Protein backbone atom coordinates (compact mmCIF):
# COMPACT_ATOMS: atom_id res chain seq x y z
CA UNK A 1 0.00 0.00 0.00
CA UNK A 2 2.67 2.42 1.14
CA UNK A 3 4.99 1.21 -1.58
CA UNK A 4 2.34 1.79 -4.21
CA UNK A 5 1.84 5.34 -3.00
CA UNK A 6 5.58 6.02 -3.07
CA UNK A 7 5.81 4.61 -6.56
CA UNK A 8 2.92 6.75 -7.78
CA UNK A 9 4.54 9.85 -6.30
CA UNK A 10 7.84 8.99 -7.99
CA UNK A 11 6.14 8.58 -11.34
CA UNK A 12 4.26 11.82 -10.80
CA UNK A 13 7.54 13.67 -10.32
CA UNK A 14 8.90 12.05 -13.46
CA UNK A 15 5.90 13.26 -15.47
CA UNK A 16 6.37 16.78 -14.10
CA UNK A 17 10.04 16.66 -15.00
CA UNK A 18 9.08 15.79 -18.56
CA UNK A 19 7.34 19.18 -18.78
CA UNK A 20 10.59 20.94 -19.71
CA UNK A 21 11.14 18.44 -22.48
CA UNK A 22 7.61 18.72 -23.83
CA UNK A 23 7.53 22.51 -23.63
CA UNK A 24 10.81 22.75 -25.54
CA UNK A 25 9.45 20.32 -28.14
CA UNK A 26 6.19 22.29 -28.45
CA UNK A 27 8.03 25.56 -28.94
CA UNK A 28 10.34 24.10 -31.57
CA UNK A 29 7.57 22.30 -33.44
CA UNK A 30 5.11 25.20 -33.54
CA UNK A 31 7.67 27.75 -34.62
CA UNK A 32 9.02 25.41 -37.29
CA UNK A 33 5.53 24.63 -38.62
CA UNK A 34 4.76 28.31 -38.97
CA UNK A 35 8.10 29.42 -40.32
CA UNK A 36 9.40 26.66 -42.56
CA UNK A 37 6.90 27.10 -45.46
CA UNK A 38 8.14 30.62 -46.15
CA UNK A 39 11.77 29.55 -46.04
CA UNK A 40 10.92 26.68 -48.40
CA UNK A 41 9.17 29.04 -50.78
CA UNK A 42 11.83 31.74 -50.81
CA UNK A 43 14.71 29.31 -50.55
CA UNK A 44 17.01 29.09 -47.54
CA UNK A 45 19.87 30.88 -49.27
CA UNK A 46 17.69 33.74 -50.52
CA UNK A 47 16.02 34.04 -47.14
CA UNK A 48 19.27 34.32 -45.21
CA UNK A 49 21.34 36.26 -47.72
CA UNK A 50 18.56 38.24 -49.40
CA UNK A 51 19.05 42.00 -49.08
CA UNK A 52 15.47 43.02 -49.64
CA UNK A 53 12.73 42.83 -47.03
CA UNK A 54 9.47 44.02 -48.55
CA UNK A 55 6.61 41.91 -47.22
CA UNK A 56 4.02 43.62 -49.40
CA UNK A 57 5.96 42.51 -52.48
CA UNK A 58 6.66 39.06 -51.12
CA UNK A 59 10.38 39.77 -50.77
CA UNK A 60 11.78 38.20 -47.61
CA UNK A 61 15.54 38.63 -47.25
CA UNK A 62 16.86 39.00 -43.72
CA UNK A 63 20.56 39.55 -44.34
CA UNK A 64 20.49 43.19 -43.16
CA UNK A 65 18.91 42.07 -39.91
CA UNK A 66 21.44 39.31 -39.40
CA UNK A 67 24.16 41.92 -39.89
CA UNK A 68 22.27 44.22 -37.51
CA UNK A 69 21.99 41.54 -34.83
CA UNK A 70 25.62 40.53 -35.16
CA UNK A 71 26.92 44.09 -35.10
CA UNK A 72 25.01 45.20 -31.98
CA UNK A 73 25.95 41.95 -30.26
CA UNK A 74 29.63 42.29 -31.11
CA UNK A 75 29.48 45.94 -30.09
CA UNK A 76 27.84 45.00 -26.80
CA UNK A 77 30.50 42.34 -26.20
CA UNK A 78 33.36 44.74 -26.95
CA UNK A 79 32.01 47.26 -24.46
CA UNK A 80 30.47 44.89 -21.94
CA UNK A 81 32.92 42.01 -21.60
CA UNK A 82 35.98 43.98 -20.38
CA UNK A 83 33.75 45.98 -18.05
CA UNK A 84 32.12 42.86 -16.69
CA UNK A 85 35.40 41.05 -16.16
CA UNK A 86 36.77 44.09 -14.33
CA UNK A 87 33.68 44.02 -12.13
CA UNK A 88 34.06 40.34 -11.32
CA UNK A 89 37.77 40.80 -10.51
CA UNK A 90 36.77 43.76 -8.39
CA UNK A 91 34.17 41.74 -6.52
CA UNK A 92 36.34 38.68 -5.97
CA UNK A 93 39.75 40.23 -5.37
CA UNK A 94 39.73 43.92 -4.57
CA UNK A 95 36.48 44.96 -2.98
CA UNK A 96 36.34 45.00 0.82
CA UNK A 97 33.60 42.58 1.98
CA UNK A 98 31.33 45.41 3.03
CA UNK A 99 31.54 46.94 -0.44
CA UNK A 100 31.03 43.73 -2.39
CA UNK A 101 28.05 42.95 -0.19
CA UNK A 102 26.36 46.04 -1.62
CA UNK A 103 27.79 45.98 -5.14
CA UNK A 104 26.90 42.35 -5.85
CA UNK A 105 23.12 42.67 -5.37
CA UNK A 106 23.26 46.08 -7.07
CA UNK A 107 24.69 44.53 -10.22
CA UNK A 108 22.10 41.76 -10.03
CA UNK A 109 19.48 44.48 -9.78
CA UNK A 110 20.56 45.56 -13.27
CA UNK A 111 19.23 42.21 -14.49
CA UNK A 112 15.82 42.88 -12.99
CA UNK A 113 15.18 46.26 -14.56
CA UNK A 114 12.65 45.88 -17.40
CA UNK A 115 14.27 46.01 -20.82
CA UNK A 116 11.78 48.66 -21.94
CA UNK A 117 13.10 50.91 -19.22
CA UNK A 118 16.64 50.52 -20.54
CA UNK A 119 15.34 51.27 -24.02
CA UNK A 120 13.55 54.34 -22.82
CA UNK A 121 16.57 55.57 -20.91
CA UNK A 122 18.67 54.99 -24.02
CA UNK A 123 16.16 56.87 -26.12
CA UNK A 124 16.04 59.88 -23.85
CA UNK A 125 19.69 59.97 -22.83
CA UNK A 126 22.11 57.96 -25.00
CA UNK A 127 20.51 58.70 -28.37
CA UNK A 128 20.53 62.50 -28.00
CA UNK A 129 24.08 62.32 -26.62
CA UNK A 130 25.30 60.42 -29.67
CA UNK A 131 23.44 62.75 -32.00
CA UNK A 132 24.95 65.82 -30.37
CA UNK A 133 28.52 64.64 -29.89
CA UNK A 134 29.15 62.15 -32.68
CA UNK A 135 26.62 63.12 -35.30
CA UNK A 136 24.17 61.00 -37.26
CA UNK A 137 20.59 60.33 -36.26
CA UNK A 138 21.57 59.07 -32.82
CA UNK A 139 19.35 56.02 -33.24
CA UNK A 140 22.21 53.72 -34.12
CA UNK A 141 24.18 50.51 -33.74
CA UNK A 142 26.30 52.31 -31.15
CA UNK A 143 23.30 53.23 -29.02
CA UNK A 144 22.06 49.64 -29.19
CA UNK A 145 25.50 48.31 -28.28
CA UNK A 146 25.78 50.58 -25.25
CA UNK A 147 22.37 49.60 -23.91
CA UNK A 148 23.00 45.90 -24.49
CA UNK A 149 26.46 46.15 -22.90
CA UNK A 150 24.79 47.35 -19.70
CA UNK A 151 22.10 44.69 -19.93
CA UNK A 152 24.52 41.77 -20.29
CA UNK A 153 26.74 42.91 -17.41
CA UNK A 154 24.90 40.95 -14.69
CA UNK A 155 25.01 37.68 -16.66
CA UNK A 156 28.73 37.89 -17.32
CA UNK A 157 29.64 39.21 -13.87
CA UNK A 158 27.73 36.60 -11.90
CA UNK A 159 28.95 33.57 -13.86
CA UNK A 160 32.59 34.64 -14.13
CA UNK A 161 32.59 35.67 -10.47
CA UNK A 162 31.42 32.21 -9.48
CA UNK A 163 34.11 30.59 -11.61
CA UNK A 164 36.84 32.73 -10.06
CA UNK A 165 35.53 32.03 -6.55
CA UNK A 166 35.48 28.30 -7.30
CA UNK A 167 39.25 28.18 -7.86
CA UNK A 168 41.22 26.38 -5.16
CA UNK A 169 42.86 28.76 -2.67
CA UNK A 170 46.20 27.10 -3.29
CA UNK A 171 46.44 28.67 -6.77
CA UNK A 172 46.46 32.14 -5.33
CA UNK A 173 48.52 31.30 -2.26
CA UNK A 174 51.07 29.41 -4.33
CA UNK A 175 51.53 32.28 -6.73
CA UNK A 176 51.78 34.89 -3.98
CA UNK A 177 54.25 32.69 -2.12
CA UNK A 178 56.47 32.70 -5.21
CA UNK A 179 56.73 36.47 -4.95
CA UNK A 180 54.20 37.45 -7.61
CA UNK A 181 52.21 40.60 -6.97
CA UNK A 182 48.45 40.39 -6.47
CA UNK A 183 47.83 41.69 -9.98
CA UNK A 184 50.35 39.28 -11.56
CA UNK A 185 48.58 36.47 -9.72
CA UNK A 186 45.19 37.57 -11.04
CA UNK A 187 46.44 38.02 -14.59
CA UNK A 188 48.61 34.97 -15.00
CA UNK A 189 47.07 32.45 -12.59
CA UNK A 190 43.47 33.21 -11.67
CA UNK A 191 42.09 34.47 -14.98
CA UNK A 192 43.62 31.65 -17.08
CA UNK A 193 42.40 29.08 -14.55
CA UNK A 194 38.87 30.49 -14.64
CA UNK A 195 38.97 30.76 -18.41
CA UNK A 196 36.24 28.25 -19.22
CA UNK A 197 33.79 29.83 -16.79
CA UNK A 198 34.51 33.30 -18.13
CA UNK A 199 34.13 32.11 -21.73
CA UNK A 200 30.80 30.53 -20.85
CA UNK A 201 29.60 33.74 -19.24
CA UNK A 202 30.59 35.75 -22.31
CA UNK A 203 28.75 33.39 -24.65
CA UNK A 204 25.63 33.41 -22.50
CA UNK A 205 25.85 37.20 -22.32
CA UNK A 206 26.04 37.40 -26.10
CA UNK A 207 23.04 35.08 -26.28
CA UNK A 208 21.13 37.54 -24.12
CA UNK A 209 22.22 40.44 -26.29
CA UNK A 210 21.20 38.81 -29.54
CA UNK A 211 17.83 37.82 -28.09
CA UNK A 212 16.95 41.20 -26.61
CA UNK A 213 14.07 42.98 -28.28
CA UNK A 214 12.34 45.83 -26.52
CA UNK A 215 15.38 47.81 -25.45
CA UNK A 216 16.85 47.62 -28.92
CA UNK A 217 13.63 48.55 -30.72
CA UNK A 218 13.67 51.94 -29.03
CA UNK A 219 17.25 52.98 -29.80
CA UNK A 220 18.19 51.27 -33.07
CA UNK A 221 16.17 53.23 -35.60
CA UNK A 222 14.96 50.02 -37.20
CA UNK A 223 15.83 50.85 -40.81
CA UNK A 224 16.02 47.77 -43.02
CA UNK A 225 19.40 48.51 -44.56
CA UNK A 226 22.96 47.42 -44.00
CA UNK A 227 24.50 49.76 -41.45
CA UNK A 228 27.68 51.28 -42.89
CA UNK A 229 29.03 52.67 -39.65
CA UNK A 230 28.25 52.31 -35.97
CA UNK A 231 26.40 55.62 -36.16
CA UNK A 232 23.88 54.25 -38.69
CA UNK A 233 20.49 52.90 -37.70
CA UNK A 234 19.90 49.17 -38.10
CA UNK A 235 17.33 46.47 -37.52
CA UNK A 236 17.92 43.19 -35.72
CA UNK A 237 16.19 39.83 -36.08
CA UNK A 238 14.35 40.38 -32.82
CA UNK A 239 13.22 43.91 -33.58
CA UNK A 240 12.01 42.75 -36.98
CA UNK A 241 9.64 40.39 -35.19
CA UNK A 242 8.78 42.87 -32.45
CA UNK A 243 7.85 45.69 -34.80
CA UNK A 244 5.93 43.80 -37.43
CA UNK A 245 4.11 41.09 -35.45
CA UNK A 246 1.60 43.73 -34.41
CA UNK A 247 0.11 44.04 -37.87
CA UNK A 248 1.50 41.17 -39.95
CA UNK A 249 -0.74 38.46 -41.32
CA UNK A 250 -0.58 35.56 -43.73
CA UNK A 251 2.74 35.00 -45.42
CA UNK A 252 4.22 38.08 -43.80
CA UNK A 253 3.48 36.67 -40.38
CA UNK A 254 5.00 33.35 -41.38
CA UNK A 255 8.12 35.17 -42.52
CA UNK A 256 8.42 36.60 -39.00
CA UNK A 257 8.25 33.09 -37.57
CA UNK A 258 10.95 32.15 -40.08
CA UNK A 259 13.02 35.02 -38.66
CA UNK A 260 12.37 33.44 -35.27
CA UNK A 261 13.75 30.13 -36.54
CA UNK A 262 17.00 31.79 -37.58
CA UNK A 263 17.19 33.50 -34.19
CA UNK A 264 16.49 30.23 -32.42
CA UNK A 265 19.21 28.43 -34.38
CA UNK A 266 21.77 31.11 -33.51
CA UNK A 267 20.78 30.95 -29.83
CA UNK A 268 20.96 27.16 -29.75
CA UNK A 269 24.40 27.21 -31.35
CA UNK A 270 25.63 29.70 -28.74
CA UNK A 271 24.01 27.71 -25.95
CA UNK A 272 25.54 24.44 -27.12
CA UNK A 273 28.93 26.12 -27.34
CA UNK A 274 28.51 27.33 -23.77
CA UNK A 275 27.48 23.87 -22.52
CA UNK A 276 30.40 22.30 -24.38
CA UNK A 277 32.84 24.67 -22.71
CA UNK A 278 31.29 23.95 -19.32
CA UNK A 279 31.65 20.23 -19.89
CA UNK A 280 35.20 20.51 -21.14
CA UNK A 281 36.10 22.70 -18.18
CA UNK A 282 34.78 19.96 -15.90
CA UNK A 283 36.82 17.13 -17.45
Amino acid at each position, binding site marked *: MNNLKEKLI*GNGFFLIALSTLSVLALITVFILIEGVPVIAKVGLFNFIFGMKWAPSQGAFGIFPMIVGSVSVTVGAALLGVPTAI*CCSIFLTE*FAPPAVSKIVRPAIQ*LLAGIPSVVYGFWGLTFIVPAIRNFLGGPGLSVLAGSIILAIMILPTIVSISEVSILALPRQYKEGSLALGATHWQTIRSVLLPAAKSGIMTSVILGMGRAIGETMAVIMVLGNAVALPKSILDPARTLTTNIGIEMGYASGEHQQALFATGIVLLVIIMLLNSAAQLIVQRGRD
Partner: protein
Amino acid sequence: MRISPKKSQIIAKTLIWAVAVIVILLLIFIMAYILVKGLPTLSWQFLSEVPRDMGRSGGILSTIVSTLLVTVVAVVVATPLGVGTAFYLTEYTREGRVTRIIRFCAGALAAIPSIVYGLFGFIFFVIYLKLGWSVISGGLTLGVMILPTIIRTSEDAIRAVHPMYRDVSYSLGGTKWQTIVGAVAPSALPGIITGVILGIGRCVAETAAVILTAGSALRMPTSLFSPARTMAVHFYILAREGISMERAYGTAALLIVFILIINVAANILLNKFVAKGR
Protein backbone atom coordinates in the same frame (compact mmCIF):
# COMPACT_ATOMS: atom_id res chain seq x y z
CA MET B 1 60.35 50.35 -21.42
CA ARG B 2 59.26 47.76 -18.91
CA ILE B 3 56.80 48.70 -16.27
CA SER B 4 57.70 47.29 -12.89
CA PRO B 5 55.30 44.72 -11.37
CA LYS B 6 54.59 47.13 -8.56
CA LYS B 7 53.61 49.88 -10.97
CA SER B 8 51.48 47.64 -13.20
CA GLN B 9 49.66 46.45 -10.09
CA ILE B 10 48.83 50.00 -9.14
CA ILE B 11 47.63 50.80 -12.65
CA ALA B 12 45.49 47.67 -12.90
CA LYS B 13 44.02 48.15 -9.47
CA THR B 14 43.12 51.77 -10.18
CA LEU B 15 41.56 50.83 -13.50
CA ILE B 16 39.45 48.05 -12.02
CA TRP B 17 38.30 50.23 -9.14
CA ALA B 18 37.44 52.94 -11.65
CA VAL B 19 35.39 50.58 -13.81
CA ALA B 20 33.52 49.24 -10.80
CA VAL B 21 32.76 52.74 -9.57
CA ILE B 22 31.57 53.78 -13.04
CA VAL B 23 29.23 50.78 -13.24
CA ILE B 24 27.76 51.58 -9.84
CA LEU B 25 27.36 55.24 -10.73
CA LEU B 26 25.69 54.20 -13.96
CA LEU B 27 23.24 52.00 -12.10
CA ILE B 28 22.45 54.77 -9.66
CA PHE B 29 22.14 57.22 -12.53
CA ILE B 30 19.66 55.07 -14.50
CA MET B 31 17.51 54.45 -11.45
CA ALA B 32 17.66 58.06 -10.32
CA TYR B 33 16.89 59.34 -13.82
CA ILE B 34 13.67 57.34 -14.02
CA LEU B 35 12.67 57.84 -10.41
CA VAL B 36 13.28 61.60 -10.34
CA LYS B 37 11.24 62.10 -13.47
CA GLY B 38 8.58 59.56 -12.60
CA LEU B 39 7.98 59.67 -8.85
CA PRO B 40 6.27 63.10 -8.91
CA THR B 41 3.62 61.61 -11.20
CA LEU B 42 2.83 58.84 -8.73
CA SER B 43 -0.21 59.75 -6.74
CA TRP B 44 -3.13 57.91 -5.26
CA GLN B 45 -5.20 59.02 -8.23
CA PHE B 46 -2.58 57.66 -10.67
CA LEU B 47 -2.66 54.28 -8.95
CA SER B 48 -6.39 54.02 -8.34
CA GLU B 49 -7.97 55.24 -11.57
CA VAL B 50 -8.29 53.45 -14.86
CA PRO B 51 -6.56 55.07 -17.85
CA ARG B 52 -8.62 57.41 -20.02
CA ASP B 53 -8.03 58.73 -23.50
CA MET B 54 -5.46 56.04 -24.48
CA GLY B 55 -3.57 56.70 -21.28
CA ARG B 56 -3.19 60.45 -21.75
CA SER B 57 -5.15 61.03 -18.58
CA GLY B 58 -6.52 58.99 -15.72
CA GLY B 59 -4.39 56.45 -13.91
CA ILE B 60 -2.94 53.04 -14.60
CA LEU B 61 -5.06 50.82 -12.37
CA SER B 62 -6.11 48.43 -15.13
CA THR B 63 -2.48 47.83 -16.11
CA ILE B 64 -1.52 47.11 -12.49
CA VAL B 65 -4.38 44.62 -12.24
CA SER B 66 -3.39 43.07 -15.57
CA THR B 67 0.23 42.71 -14.46
CA LEU B 68 -0.91 41.07 -11.26
CA LEU B 69 -3.26 38.64 -13.01
CA VAL B 70 -0.79 37.61 -15.70
CA THR B 71 1.92 37.11 -13.08
CA VAL B 72 -0.34 35.04 -10.85
CA VAL B 73 -1.25 32.73 -13.74
CA ALA B 74 2.43 32.36 -14.65
CA VAL B 75 3.49 31.56 -11.09
CA VAL B 76 0.61 29.16 -10.48
CA VAL B 77 1.59 27.21 -13.60
CA ALA B 78 5.38 27.40 -13.34
CA THR B 79 5.90 26.81 -9.61
CA PRO B 80 4.57 23.25 -9.35
CA LEU B 81 6.23 22.25 -12.62
CA GLY B 82 9.55 23.90 -11.78
CA VAL B 83 9.75 22.79 -8.16
CA GLY B 84 8.54 19.29 -9.09
CA THR B 85 11.20 19.01 -11.78
CA ALA B 86 13.84 20.15 -9.30
CA PHE B 87 12.72 17.50 -6.79
CA TYR B 88 12.74 14.88 -9.51
CA LEU B 89 16.28 15.81 -10.52
CA THR B 90 17.61 15.84 -6.98
CA GLU B 91 15.63 13.18 -5.12
CA TYR B 92 14.09 10.74 -7.53
CA THR B 93 16.79 9.91 -9.98
CA ARG B 94 20.51 9.36 -10.15
CA GLU B 95 22.71 11.38 -12.46
CA GLY B 96 22.47 9.85 -15.88
CA ARG B 97 21.05 10.27 -19.32
CA VAL B 98 17.60 11.36 -18.12
CA THR B 99 18.92 14.12 -15.88
CA ARG B 100 21.27 15.29 -18.63
CA ILE B 101 18.40 15.55 -21.11
CA ILE B 102 16.15 17.40 -18.67
CA ARG B 103 18.94 19.79 -17.68
CA PHE B 104 19.77 20.39 -21.32
CA CYS B 105 16.12 21.25 -22.00
CA ALA B 106 15.98 23.60 -19.01
CA GLY B 107 19.19 25.28 -20.19
CA ALA B 108 17.79 25.65 -23.69
CA LEU B 109 14.53 27.11 -22.36
CA ALA B 110 16.54 29.61 -20.33
CA ALA B 111 18.40 30.70 -23.45
CA ILE B 112 15.35 31.24 -25.68
CA PRO B 113 14.74 34.97 -26.19
CA SER B 114 11.49 36.37 -24.86
CA ILE B 115 10.35 37.44 -28.32
CA VAL B 116 10.46 33.78 -29.38
CA TYR B 117 8.34 32.92 -26.34
CA GLY B 118 6.02 35.60 -27.63
CA LEU B 119 5.86 33.97 -31.06
CA PHE B 120 5.25 30.58 -29.50
CA GLY B 121 2.60 31.88 -27.10
CA PHE B 122 0.88 33.66 -29.94
CA ILE B 123 0.73 30.69 -32.29
CA PHE B 124 0.08 28.05 -29.60
CA PHE B 125 -2.08 29.65 -26.90
CA VAL B 126 -3.67 32.54 -28.80
CA ILE B 127 -4.31 30.85 -32.16
CA TYR B 128 -4.05 27.08 -31.82
CA LEU B 129 -5.73 26.69 -28.43
CA LYS B 130 -8.07 29.58 -29.37
CA LEU B 131 -7.50 31.37 -26.06
CA GLY B 132 -7.17 34.67 -27.88
CA TRP B 133 -5.15 37.63 -26.64
CA SER B 134 -5.90 37.16 -22.99
CA VAL B 135 -4.65 37.10 -19.44
CA ILE B 136 -4.48 33.32 -19.63
CA SER B 137 -2.45 33.25 -22.87
CA GLY B 138 -0.02 35.82 -21.49
CA GLY B 139 0.22 34.09 -18.14
CA LEU B 140 0.84 30.66 -19.65
CA THR B 141 3.52 32.06 -21.96
CA LEU B 142 5.28 33.76 -19.06
CA GLY B 143 4.89 30.58 -17.01
CA VAL B 144 6.83 28.65 -19.63
CA MET B 145 9.38 31.45 -19.77
CA ILE B 146 10.13 31.49 -16.02
CA LEU B 147 10.11 27.68 -15.71
CA PRO B 148 13.91 27.31 -16.12
CA THR B 149 14.59 30.05 -13.52
CA ILE B 150 12.45 28.26 -10.96
CA ILE B 151 13.96 24.86 -11.79
CA ARG B 152 17.52 26.09 -11.37
CA THR B 153 17.07 28.04 -8.14
CA SER B 154 15.00 25.25 -6.59
CA GLU B 155 17.52 22.62 -7.59
CA ASP B 156 20.34 24.65 -6.04
CA ALA B 157 18.28 25.13 -2.89
CA ILE B 158 17.48 21.43 -2.57
CA ARG B 159 21.10 20.44 -3.15
CA ALA B 160 22.17 22.83 -0.42
CA VAL B 161 20.07 21.00 2.20
CA HIS B 162 22.25 19.31 4.84
CA PRO B 163 22.60 15.73 3.53
CA MET B 164 22.18 14.31 7.04
CA TYR B 165 18.62 15.67 7.24
CA ARG B 166 17.59 12.95 4.82
CA ASP B 167 19.38 10.24 6.83
CA VAL B 168 17.82 11.50 10.04
CA SER B 169 14.35 11.44 8.56
CA TYR B 170 14.79 7.95 7.11
CA SER B 171 16.23 6.73 10.39
CA LEU B 172 13.12 8.01 12.17
CA GLY B 173 10.99 5.82 9.94
CA GLY B 174 10.10 8.41 7.33
CA THR B 175 9.20 7.23 3.85
CA LYS B 176 10.77 8.98 0.88
CA TRP B 177 7.76 11.23 0.43
CA GLN B 178 7.58 12.06 4.15
CA THR B 179 11.30 12.81 4.12
CA ILE B 180 10.92 15.20 1.21
CA VAL B 181 7.93 16.96 2.71
CA GLY B 182 9.07 16.92 6.32
CA ALA B 183 12.84 17.37 6.23
CA VAL B 184 14.06 18.46 2.80
CA ALA B 185 11.38 20.87 1.60
CA PRO B 186 11.24 23.08 4.73
CA SER B 187 15.01 23.65 4.59
CA ALA B 188 14.95 24.33 0.86
CA LEU B 189 11.86 26.55 1.04
CA PRO B 190 13.56 29.97 1.31
CA GLY B 191 15.70 29.14 -1.71
CA ILE B 192 12.68 27.91 -3.65
CA ILE B 193 10.69 31.02 -2.78
CA THR B 194 13.63 33.15 -3.91
CA GLY B 195 13.42 31.43 -7.30
CA VAL B 196 9.69 32.12 -7.50
CA ILE B 197 10.25 35.76 -6.56
CA LEU B 198 12.88 36.12 -9.28
CA GLY B 199 10.33 34.59 -11.66
CA ILE B 200 7.75 37.15 -10.56
CA GLY B 201 10.31 39.87 -11.25
CA ARG B 202 10.79 38.61 -14.79
CA CYS B 203 7.02 38.49 -15.37
CA VAL B 204 6.54 42.05 -14.18
CA ALA B 205 9.42 43.28 -16.34
CA GLU B 206 8.57 41.35 -19.49
CA THR B 207 7.19 43.17 -22.52
CA ALA B 208 7.88 41.36 -25.78
CA ALA B 209 6.33 38.04 -24.80
CA VAL B 210 3.27 39.66 -23.23
CA ILE B 211 2.43 42.10 -25.96
CA LEU B 212 2.10 39.22 -28.45
CA THR B 213 0.01 37.01 -26.16
CA ALA B 214 -2.03 39.18 -23.78
CA GLY B 215 -2.54 41.96 -26.27
CA SER B 216 -2.59 45.62 -25.42
CA ALA B 217 -6.23 46.40 -24.68
CA LEU B 218 -6.42 49.09 -22.05
CA ARG B 219 -9.74 47.99 -20.55
CA MET B 220 -9.88 46.51 -17.09
CA PRO B 221 -9.71 42.71 -17.54
CA THR B 222 -12.92 41.08 -16.34
CA SER B 223 -11.89 37.44 -16.60
CA LEU B 224 -8.91 35.26 -17.40
CA PHE B 225 -10.01 35.38 -21.01
CA SER B 226 -10.04 39.17 -21.32
CA PRO B 227 -7.24 40.83 -23.22
CA ALA B 228 -4.95 42.81 -20.97
CA ARG B 229 -2.17 45.38 -21.04
CA THR B 230 0.50 45.00 -18.38
CA MET B 231 2.41 47.93 -16.91
CA ALA B 232 5.53 47.20 -18.93
CA VAL B 233 3.52 47.07 -22.17
CA HIS B 234 1.64 50.23 -21.22
CA PHE B 235 4.90 52.01 -20.54
CA TYR B 236 6.29 50.85 -23.88
CA ILE B 237 3.25 52.08 -25.81
CA LEU B 238 3.12 55.42 -23.96
CA ALA B 239 6.79 56.06 -24.59
CA ARG B 240 7.05 54.74 -28.11
CA GLU B 241 3.99 56.43 -29.44
CA GLY B 242 4.72 59.57 -27.49
CA ILE B 243 1.27 59.55 -25.89
CA SER B 244 2.37 61.00 -22.57
CA MET B 245 5.97 61.18 -21.44
CA GLU B 246 4.91 62.22 -17.96
CA ARG B 247 2.76 59.12 -17.56
CA ALA B 248 5.42 56.95 -19.17
CA TYR B 249 7.94 58.07 -16.54
CA GLY B 250 5.37 57.52 -13.81
CA THR B 251 4.70 53.97 -14.97
CA ALA B 252 8.42 53.29 -15.33
CA ALA B 253 9.06 54.59 -11.82
CA LEU B 254 6.41 52.30 -10.42
CA LEU B 255 7.91 49.36 -12.32
CA ILE B 256 11.33 50.16 -10.87
CA VAL B 257 9.88 50.39 -7.37
CA PHE B 258 8.25 46.97 -7.83
CA ILE B 259 11.49 45.46 -9.13
CA LEU B 260 13.43 47.00 -6.24
CA ILE B 261 11.04 45.50 -3.70
CA ILE B 262 11.17 42.12 -5.42
CA ASN B 263 14.97 42.13 -5.52
CA VAL B 264 15.34 43.19 -1.92
CA ALA B 265 12.89 40.50 -0.82
CA ALA B 266 14.75 37.85 -2.80
CA ASN B 267 18.07 38.95 -1.33
CA ILE B 268 16.85 38.97 2.24
CA LEU B 269 15.43 35.48 1.84
CA LEU B 270 18.56 34.21 0.18
CA ASN B 271 20.82 35.61 2.90
CA LYS B 272 18.62 34.06 5.55
CA PHE B 273 18.86 30.78 3.68
CA VAL B 274 22.64 30.93 3.42
CA ALA B 275 22.97 31.87 7.09
CA LYS B 276 20.78 28.95 8.11
CA GLY B 277 22.56 26.49 5.85
CA ARG B 278 25.87 27.08 7.59
